[in-house]
């Protein structure tokens, strides 16, 4: 018998370890274009202690460990590129604490975005967190591990900027806490202790986040979004700049897509607002749609499509069905807002070259400090040619990001190489040292962010 | 390669608490019972069907019984048999020797490299039919086979002994094996599969066509009667919902010093 398997059974129980072809098959994929690669074990732990034991075992046996939450990060970040243990963290799904006054939530790593949203709606309706545009089974911890952003990015920045504290199992098995929780029962701040931010953005290559404290924000009575549309992409940076100046929007997204055809080529701005009263809403609406955008309407450069109350849960998975084929993947990038017009035009060219209906989107992060710009490519899972097309388009988009002076968000292996090639050698060298120090045997998510040894 | 599988139809007594002896005192009351294929024969058929899937095998299923026995042959056809033959003779009152005489006579008329039987029947459970047929055919046999592997002109088998031990043989073909349960996992036969099997060839023969006379089929061991066996001491039954039965049982175990 396989002694690693036996040990894993010992740790998590036989029901939560599998070496059967079915589990190995399913955990060999992410949902995008990355070639599947089978893990040797699929394991679903329930506690931090179990994860410690698994990681120690993996270290002894030199077996890779690939953590995943919702498994929705795409780009191959949760594909066991070198086999080993696919560590499904979704059983660790306890919401440990919500501190209403200090506005934070402490969650285990398997808690999904949908779960926290629902929990807050039911128990703390005056609070919300910044929910990313992913399907609701995406996890809080997975999202901060890749520097995700959500629907409160405009006022408050990246989700990883909202982290108040972390509990992490190091690749060598120790549990570490960062932020106030390392010295106090409160999980309310990361600062002002010496900075040891070694896990955010590392895509699971430096350790396994087991608990996160994430900031929560006021949730007002009325949530809704106004739609503003322009024909000329060149106007978008200016509009974004002016809208952010109002400090009124809690989310600001510009997008353009080929489907439905009648709005192809148009640029939509979704401006989300929240208010505790009609008075507040009227004020905000007036400030944005009359005082700020009114002149564009009068000039005939833009149109107001109305304001919809209520917040629609993002249903990005629908994009996957554009080619009736169950698949899409996108390149996300963090770009200066001023590059929007170029990002759109060049992205549209890439899509059209590969016969894919184009869809581009820019979500503003901070006060126009940056935007997450994405180029999405749908493909038909049953048609390898379309998968190949999408993969090429993705690579071309990665190239484009760097050409335009941006940075790739959660790049796959191809994009990681591009980034590392351009990176300041001293920075890269520091990354190498950090990785070597934390993960001497290179067991954490190998194949991703291979900084060299 | 030609494979012949002999199958039997048996009453399914599992759904009844008790069986009743009929007026003849030599049979049980069958009216309330449904019939099914003998469990062991299902394993034999599955073994044959698996051989057929691997290599060029022609598979014939045979039985001896009255016309309602066709249903077990339909099942065999649905499981992959190419043809099926029923010898039309009610042999409920016959002994194993007579039944094997008929089956041996039938198999003799068929090409046969490998003959498979279930190791025993669910109803009478004598476990002797297959080995008797082998002897009548003058071919080697192995009873209680738990694994088989057909090679060129021979079959390698493991026979089950007591206490988990096995006995291995290489046997030249033609040979006869009686198949023990657990040798494989018999597939489910869908109602649709059985319906489709209705179109396959099912041949009926009589014992006289096989050149057999009543005299040749006279029983050697004569069934005198069935009896309800004396049951030993009966268990003391604990009744009630699980809550109560479990509680009482725990009490009993405690009194017995087990808990």
């Amino acid at each position, binding site marked *: 018998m396989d002694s690693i398997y036996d040990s894993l059974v010992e740790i998590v129980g036989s029901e939560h370890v599998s070496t059967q072809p079915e589990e190995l098959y399913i955990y060999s994929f992410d949902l995008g274009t990355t070639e599947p690669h089978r893990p040797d074990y699929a394991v679903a732990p329930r506690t931090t202690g179990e994860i410690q034991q698994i990681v120690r075992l993996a270290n002894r046996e030199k077996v890779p460990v690939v953590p995943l939450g919702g498994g929705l990060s795409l780009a191959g970040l949760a594909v066991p590129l070198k086999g080993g243990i696919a560590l499904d963290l979704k059983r660790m799904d306890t919401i440990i604490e919500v501190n209403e006054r200090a506005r934070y939530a402490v969650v285990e790593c398997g808690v999904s975005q949908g779960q926290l949203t629902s929990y807050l709606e039911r128990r703390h309706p005056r609070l919300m967190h910044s929910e990313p545009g992913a399907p609701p089974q995406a996890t809080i911890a997975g999202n901060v591990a890749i520097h995700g952003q959500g629907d409160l990015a405009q006022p408050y920045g990246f989700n990883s900027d909202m982290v108040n504290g972390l509990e992490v199992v190091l690749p060598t098995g120790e549990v570490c806490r960062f932020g106030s929780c390392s010295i106090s029962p409160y999980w309310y701040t990361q600062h002002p202790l010496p900075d040891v931010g070694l896990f955010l953005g590392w895509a699971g290559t430096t350790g396994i986040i087991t608990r996160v404290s994430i900031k929560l924000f006021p949730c007002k009575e009325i949530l809704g979004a106004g739609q503003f549309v322009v024909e000329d992409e060149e106007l978008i940076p200016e509009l974004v700049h002016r809208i952010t100046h109002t400090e009124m929007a809690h989310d600001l997204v510009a997008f353009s897509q080929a489907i439905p055809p009648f709005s192809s080529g148009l640029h939509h701005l979704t401006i989300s607002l929240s208010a505790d009263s009609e008075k507040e809403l009227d004020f905000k609406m007036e400030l944005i749609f009359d005082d700020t955008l009114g002149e564009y309407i009068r000039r005939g450069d833009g149109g107001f499509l109305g304001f919809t109350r209520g917040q629609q849960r993002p249903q990005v998975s629908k994009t996957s069905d554009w080619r009736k084929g169950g698949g899409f993947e996108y390149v996300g990038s963090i770009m200066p807002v001023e590059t929007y017009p170029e990002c759109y035009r060049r992205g549209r060219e890439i899509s059209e070259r590969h016969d894919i209906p184009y869809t581009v989107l820019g979500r503003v992060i901070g006060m126009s400090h940056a935007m997450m710009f994405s180029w999405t490519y749908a493909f038909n899972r049953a048609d390898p040619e379309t998968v190949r097309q999408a993969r090429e388009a993705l690579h071309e988009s990665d190239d484009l990001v760097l050409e335009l002076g941006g940075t790739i968000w959660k790049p796959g292996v191809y994009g990681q190489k591009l980034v590392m090639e351009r990176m300041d050698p001293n920075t890269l060298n520091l990354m190498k040292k950090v990785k070597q120090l934390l993960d001497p045997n290179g067991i954490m998510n190998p194949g991703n962010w291979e900084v060299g040894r | 390669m030609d494979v012949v599988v002999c199958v039997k139809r048996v009453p399914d007594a599992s759904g009844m608490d008790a069986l009743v002896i009929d007026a003849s005192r030599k049979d049980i009351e069958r009216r309330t019972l449904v019939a099914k294929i003998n469990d062991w024969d299902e394993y034999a058929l599955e073994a044959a069907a698996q051989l057929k899937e691997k290599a060029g095998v022609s598979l014939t299923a045979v039985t001896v019984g009255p016309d309602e026995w066709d249903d077990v042959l339909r099942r065999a056809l649905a499981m992959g048999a190419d043809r099926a033959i029923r010898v039309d003779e009610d042999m409920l009152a016959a002994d194993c020797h007579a039944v094997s005489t008929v089956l041996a006579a039938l198999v003799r008329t068929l090409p046969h490299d490998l003959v498979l039987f279930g190791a025993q029947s669910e109803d009478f459970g004598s476990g002797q039919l297959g080995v008797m047929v082998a002897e009548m055919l003058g071919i080697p046999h192995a009873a209680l086979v738990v694994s088989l592997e057909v090679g060129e002109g021979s079959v390698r088998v493991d026979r089950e002994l007591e206490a988990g031990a096995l006995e291995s043989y290489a046997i030249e073909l033609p040979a006869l094996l009686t198949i023990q349960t657990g040798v494989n996992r018999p597939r489910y036969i869908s109602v649709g599969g059985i319906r489709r099997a209705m179109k396959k060839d099912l041949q009926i023969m009589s014992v006289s066509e096989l050149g057999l006379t009543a005299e040749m089929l006279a029983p050697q061991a004569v069934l005198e009667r069935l009896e309800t066996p004396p049951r030993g001491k009966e268990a003391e039954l604990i009744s009630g919902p699980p809550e109560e039965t479990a509680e009482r049982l725990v009490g009993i175990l405690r009194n017995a010093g087990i*808990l």
Partner: protein
Amino acid sequence: MREILVVAEHRKQKVADISVQMLGKGRQLAGQAGADLVAVTIGTDVAGYARELSRYADRVLTAEVSGMQEPLAEPSQRVLSSIIRDRKPFLVLIGHSSFGMDLAPALAVELEVPLVTDCVDVSLEEDGLRAVRPVYNGKMNAVYSFALAQTVIVTGRVGEFPVGEGDRRGEFQEVSLPFGPLDYKRFEGYTEQEAAGVDITEANVLVSVGRGIKDRASIELAERLADALGGVVACSRPVVDYGWLPADRQVGLSGKTVKPKLYLALGISGAFQHVVGMRGANMIVAVNRDPGAPIFGIADYGIVDDILRVIPVLTEKVTGLRS
């Protein structure tokens, strides 16, 4: 002198229990019929077996056959058919073992004599022999007679017949027969079951599951109950056939014989092949949906219910008591 012939079987350098039991029955009938009890042992180096057999039989026939450490059916058949033709015993008793099942039917056909297998009783009536065998999985018995047969072969069920005194000194007689190796059926050896992690024969408490457990996943329920009781999980044949537990957990004729303090038979109907391996337990408790299940005929306590309902409740009660 009329004779009763007992075909002896040996396993692991010992005369098999079942053969000694056949001699017990043979002795009783021989006494009744005024006949001699003859045992025959066939194989390689059978002298030791012959000595053991001579404690029970009036005469022991020894047939030395090379390359036959353990009994094999076909060579034995050749020896026996010749002996039986020669001596014409009125009854031949063979154990209903794997060996007996491989041997007896062929022998009966060769000799054209009646055979009844798996008997739990053989008696001598005025008009001849009677043999009784269980049918319908023990729910009925069938009684057989044998018209005018000169010789009758009966195989007997293990554990159903008493062992005799073993105080005789039977005489020995060598049977020498021209005999060559079989070319059409080559014996290739034995496999003993591999020793496993858990030895169910050592356990004080066995939680034994049968077909009623329905699914591999439910085995865990039984494991939890076993843990609570400080015992281990065993099973009946179908559970091994389905691949839900390894063969070394199987209790019964083709598995292990166990004698725990408590044997909890869960969803086990109580087929003889199983019962023979566990009836030595101190206390037997059976849970089965079918009130007519033969297991209730051997258990001390019974619960008629679905085991999947009873097990969790029982586990909880036991755990509650322990903590």
